[in-house]
Each structure stands twice: as C-alpha cells, then as structure tokens.
C-alpha cells in the first residue's frame, strides 16, 4: 500500500462510481470516493465529509478500478481516523480489555479467524473448521475489525495479543475480508487466505457447484487481492460454469450495503435494494455465499435457496 497514490492524484475519471454501492444507492457524487477526493483537493476537511464517509461500506471495489492507483480505501480509513466518532471510547475499552486476555499460543498449523457472524452459528462454524482441518482461534480480532472501520488506532498491546498466538501457524484463514490485508502485513511469514477462497479450493466443495448456481464472492477479501483472485474465480467459472456476483469489470457486487452506523448496530440494516440488484435478471436455482451475512440479505428478497459454501458438502 505504501506505493499507492493519494487523494490529490485523483483525476476525476469517475470509474470508482461505477462500482460503488453507496453511489448506486445515493446517485450523488458527494457519496463517492471521487467526490471525497475532489472535495479534499478543494480544501474540504474530514469533518465536512464525515456523514458521507461514514456511509461507505468499505467493500474496497474502488481500489482495483482506480487507474491512478490511488489507495482509495486507505483514503477513506484515513478520513474516518480524523473524525471523532462517538463509539471511539467504547471500542478503545473493548480492545484494552481484550488485550488483557491474551489467547494461548496456537499449536495447530492452520488457524481460522471466524468472525462474529460465523461464531454466532456454532454448527456451521464446527462444520467449516472440520472441512478446513483448522482450529478456530479464540481471538479473531472482531474488535480490531470494528476499530479499523471506525478509524480508531489499534493499540500495540492489543495487536500483539492478536498476533502473538498466531505466530506459529503456517496458514491463517480469515472470514472477515477487511482484516485480511492487515494480517498479511502483521504476519509476513504466514500464508493468509480468505475463508471463501479456501473453501472453494476444496475439491469436495467446488465439485458441488453447478452451472445454475450464483456464487457470491465476499467483496472485501476479493478486492484486497484482486489481481490474483480474479484469475482464481475465473478458473472456477470455467470449471463449474456457475455465475458470479461480478460486474463487467469483474468487480464483486456486494450483496449487502452497510454503512458504519449500520455495522455498529446504531441504525437498522437495509440490504434489500443491493441484494435485488445482485439477483436482477439472473436465471439461477441456487445461491451459494462465502459470507454468512449475505445469506440473510438474499433470503429476505428472494425464494431461491441460499447456502453457505461449507453447507455444500
């Protein structure tokens, strides 16, 4: 990320608008990376952009499409970091408490950082861990993910508490795509993969995919490693023939569209329009999701059966 360019370099091509779920909902330049970059170029402050920036879903679709190679999501997180959020103190306390409860050192070769949603479904979590031959990490950094989203600095003690137990693991599988590129920096010697990529790489799982499936990629992990993963999923498409939630630029269309206040549970989630857009005009008989959060969104707007990848076998 260090070689990436900054908001000042935005030439205003608007390519980020085409893939931005927030812009799609609002149809308003001020609710887009293009709008924020241009506003910053003209002297706007983070506080002036606060409300719109907090509406960003952090799906990271804007990163791979930017021809100027601007670290767009980095710009958004930096802006969030400059805005004093009411939840800051709560998150800081939560991270401090977690730092005082370090998890035991990890003995298995493969660690699964399951995230809150998968943890809330113990049966599926157990099945997933068994499929992957991994052990579920006690500390999956859920509080750190929220802190990153809000723009709160993660204290080094908390970071150490997350990282130290994972140092012996050869492979770390992460359910939350936002955490993935950070873990790759924090654990440079480990192999870090997303849960979706790992599951669909299992022969037993991929063989269950069929041509009438809509396979829903988790956007955050996908866009964080776009150049490699676009090829991975293209191979999967050729092999199994299934459709993907990819647009014509091969950017993953998120099934949910959650602003920061929605992620923090401060306002009600409203994913209907976004989930309908993913399904619009498709002839499919089944939806297969990498991210468990997407299942509820699809079940609300459609009668088509929805399965998590781990439920295919």
């Amino acid at each position: 990320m260090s070689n990436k360019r900054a908001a000042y370099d935005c030439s205003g091509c608007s390519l980020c608008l085409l893939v931005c779920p927030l812009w799609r909902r609002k149809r308003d330049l001020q609710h887009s990376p293009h709008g924020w970059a241009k506003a910053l170029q003209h002297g706007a402050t983070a506080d002036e952009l606060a409300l719109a920036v907090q509406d960003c879903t952090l799906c990271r679709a804007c990163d791979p499409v930017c021809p100027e190679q601007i670290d767009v999501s980095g710009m958004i997180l930096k802006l969030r970091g400059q805005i004093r959020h009411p939840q800051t103190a709560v998150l800081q306390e939560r991270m401090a408490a977690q730092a005082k409860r370090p998890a035991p050192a990890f003995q298995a070769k493969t660690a699964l950082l399951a995230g809150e949603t998968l943890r809330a479904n113990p049966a599926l979590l157990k099945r997933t861990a068994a499929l992957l031959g991994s052990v579920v990490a006690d500390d999956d950094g859920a509080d750190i993910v929220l802190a990153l989203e809000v723009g709160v600095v993660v204290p080094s003690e908390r970071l150490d508490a997350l990282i130290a137990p994972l140092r012996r693991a050869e492979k770390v599988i992460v359910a939350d795509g936002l955490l993935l590129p950070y873990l790759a920096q924090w654990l440079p010697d480990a192999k870090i993969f997303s849960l979706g990529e790992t599951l669909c790489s299992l022969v037993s799982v991929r063989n269950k995919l069929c041509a009438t499936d809509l396979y829903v990629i988790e956007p955050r992990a996908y866009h964080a490693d776009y150049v490699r993963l676009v090829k991975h999923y293209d191979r999967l498409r050729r092999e199994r023939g299934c459709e993907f939630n990819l647009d014509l630029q091969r950017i993953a269309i998120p099934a949910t569209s959650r602003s920061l206040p929605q992620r923090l549970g401060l306002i009600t989630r409203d994913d209907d329009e976004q989930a309908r857009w993913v399904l619009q005009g498709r002839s499919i008989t089944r939806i297969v999701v990498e991210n468990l959060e997407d299942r509820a969104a699809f079940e609300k707007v459609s009668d088509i059966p929805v399965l998590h990848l781990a439920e295919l076998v």
Partner: protein
Amino acid sequence: MIPETSELPLRGATGPCHVGPDALLGIQRQQTNPTRWNGQSWDEFARVLRDCGIVLRVTKAACGAFATDAGGTAYGLPHGVVIARSAAQISSLLKAAQQYRVPVTVRGGGLTTEGESVAFGGVLLDMTGMSRVLQVDSEAATVRTEGGIFWHSLAEELRRYGMDYLSAPLNLTSSVGGTLGVGGIDVNSSRLGCSADQALALQVVTPTGEIVECSDTQNAELFRRVILGYGQFGVIAEATLKIRRYTPLRMHYFYYDSLSTAVEDMQLLNRNDASDYSGILTIMDCAVNLLVAFDSDEREAAFQANWQKQLRGHGESGFALCMLKRYALRPWKLPEAWFLLQRKRELFPEFRRSEYMRDGLMHDRSVVFSRAVWKFWGSKQMVIPDLSTSAEKFVEAVEQGNAVCRKFFPRYTLYCVGIRLRPEHKPHYEMSCIPPDAQGWAYGCEFEPMMDGQSYSRDYLQSFKNAIYDIGVDLGGSYYRFGGMMKGYIRRVFGDEVVDRHLAMKREADPAMILNRDVIF
C-alpha cells in the same frame, strides 16, 4: 515586469506566442475561459429554488468537486450545485433560471476536454443523479433510461437480459445524455452510425422549463435540435434507445508501418461492409494498428475468405520482422525501437486480459478499451483535438494532423474511425461533428498526446489544438469537440449563415441564454 502601454497588443488582437508562433497566425487571441457570471440576483434565485424544495449546495466541497472536466485545463466554480432528480425538478430550476437570468451548466460524466461541462458561475446541474434504467424491452429491442446514466451502467443492466447498446464512446463514464448531445463514436460506428443515432425518443426539459416528449415523429423539430445540439436546446431527462442482442467479439489486429495505408484499408472494409468493427490506433508513426472485429463466426469467415488477403497490414510476428529490418538499417533510431517494444509489453496484454476473454472472444470491449485509455492516456491534463472529414479528405487530414502532433509532442496516439451516416438524420447533422460535405460515411480522428507525467502550459496545449483545428478549416471538415475553449472555430468552419441561424433558434428557445450558455455561442 509590467509592459509599457504601447507594447500591449490591441484588445482582441493576436499577441506574441512564445511557444507556437505559427500556430496562432491569423486567429484572434481567444479568451479561453468565459468570464465568470457576476452573481446578480443569486440570492433571490436561491430562495426561489429552496421554496420549490430543490436542494442547492453551495459549500466548497460540493462546488469544488466540479471545478474542472476531464481535460483539466479549464477551471471554474459554480455558485451552487443541484443534483438532478426528476424532469419536474429540472423544469422548476430552469424556469427560475430564466426568470433571474442565472446560467445553468449541465454535466453528465464530465468527460469534456474544453471546459464545456465546467460552470463559470451560476448553477451546475449534475445529471448523474438521474441514472436509472426505467424499462428494458428485449422483444422490441429498446430501453428507456434516465439521461444521466453512464453508458457502462446501462451496459451492466442490459447484459443481465442478454442485450447491449448499439454504440457508445469507448469510455465507461460517458453519459447517455451528454453523448446524444454531441455524437459519440465507437469502433462499430462505421456500421451503426454515431452513438446519437440510436436515440428513438427523448424526454427533454426545454430551456424555459417545458417537459416535452420528442422523436422523429413527435415534436420532431425539438428532437432534431437536441440530438447533436451541444446541450443548447434542452436537458435530456430520459431517452429511449435502440438496443440489440449482446454478442462477444472476434478480434483481429493488423499492423502497418504507414498511416495512410492503414486508413485506406479501413475505408476499404467500411465501403464493403466487410467487418462489424474497425478502428485505427497508432502507437508511433511507423507502427499503426488496424483493429477489425466481428459479431459472428459467419461474418468473420466471410472476411477471412474475401477481404483479409486484400489488407496490406501484417500480423504481430510479421510486423515484428518488419520492425527488426527497419531498425537494423537505422541503428540511430534504437531508442524508438525500445519505446515500441516497451509499449508492446505494456499495452498488448491489456487488450488480452484473460478475465475479459473467453474462448478467444472479447467479452467486454468497452471495459477493455476504456481501462486501457485511462491507464495509458489518462492524466490530469488531457487534450484530444480531433478532425472529422468526408472519406475523400480523410487521409490528407490525418497525415497533416499527425505532422502537427510530431511537432508538438514526442509521443502521441491517433484514434480513427468511420461513421456511417443516416440520410434520414441529415437535419440532426447540421452544425455538428458531421462535416457538411460527407456522403455515406464521415471519418473522425482524435489526436491524443501522451503527457507521460509532463506538464504543459495551457498556451502550449491551445497552440497545438489550434494547429489541428486549422486543418479542419482548410479542408472544410468539422470537429467533435468544437465547444468550450475551441468555440472560436465555429464560425470559421461552419460559416456565419449557419451559425447565425442556429443562434437565432437558440435565442428563441432560451430567451435569457441560460442553458450551457458558454459552450458554443
């Protein structure tokens, strides 16, 4: 140092140009940006808008986002920004603007290069707020869409139904309304006409605020004025467009060491309807790429059987051998060969990215080409002067234009396509990018310097554009981008009679001259 009064050029006269003295000969020095509107009655106007429930944004952040266009050489700030939400809202805005004489500049994708979509005071109307597809009718092969939609967003929706638009600029963020207003060229324009030709009907908000449905049969005069009308006669709120079944492309590339030969071969293909897509993209003067593509195996097979042998271009390996020979005989030109090699390494894979190709077919040509355009030619400054001529004059035009490019920039690209003309659309074509003497096809060439991180003065770029546009005057052609900073050429190329007639129509339609007032008049 302030010059002595006697040294100052007379008002309107050509002053000395230090970088391109011959480029400006005979042309009065033009003020390249309009004067900022003085803001008279702004407060009353703003109050009326707010009373109508129209959100008017006046913050630095809101206005600053629209300070320039894709060209990045014209800068101006509106007094306020309105995001278009409905025809009724636009109608209220324009009625109030007429009453208080407030200029309204309409912006779609903002991909103008001469400041046409930059507001120098007044209101900037951002049409991307109206960018929804309203109805896709696959059987009738039509789509009804809001005017501010990007062509790419339209393609995304159409593809879900196995459909595609006919033709659109190879740029993902051009807007439908903006393109219908100026023309639009694609690599299939030699068969399907300019992008504006696919419009069947429009909902237009006139400069005085009437909401009117128009087509070739309903309010036909307004339809003729709005299509290719440079935004002078109304705001396109909705459009009904012809669409077609989506097909991936079978691509072929031929390489030439002569621009004129490549142009002649492209014209041969067009005259004989031998391909579905054709276009020229130059890498260097001695490395010219003719792109030829097909919608079906049958069309491709017919081309291979009947026409391919007549083309004088080479395949990739054959051309590599030609270049090897060329540079073996001219070792002092090795840096040029190195550039060519580098360009091949960087550019060619972009056109063959595996994610956009399936079984040898290109699935998303606009994505492939548009990404390449932004990656290799995009920058904060972009000047793309162009020439449009009849088929007969085209070789002469591109060769002269190429010589101008060589004089001004070390590296540049020419993009040439044919545009099939539709006789029944002749009334649309007057005072547009279609040259008056073109029959059957018009041909267009864009001259795009590669900035390579260099920064050029506006005067330098203006001199370059003037030198290209002078060719259009000499040859009796036209231009795609004759608005904004290039509007000084309008009377020279179209003549006073035509321009005065259009100006009279504009004055009648827009009494306070508020709508896109500085773009062409």
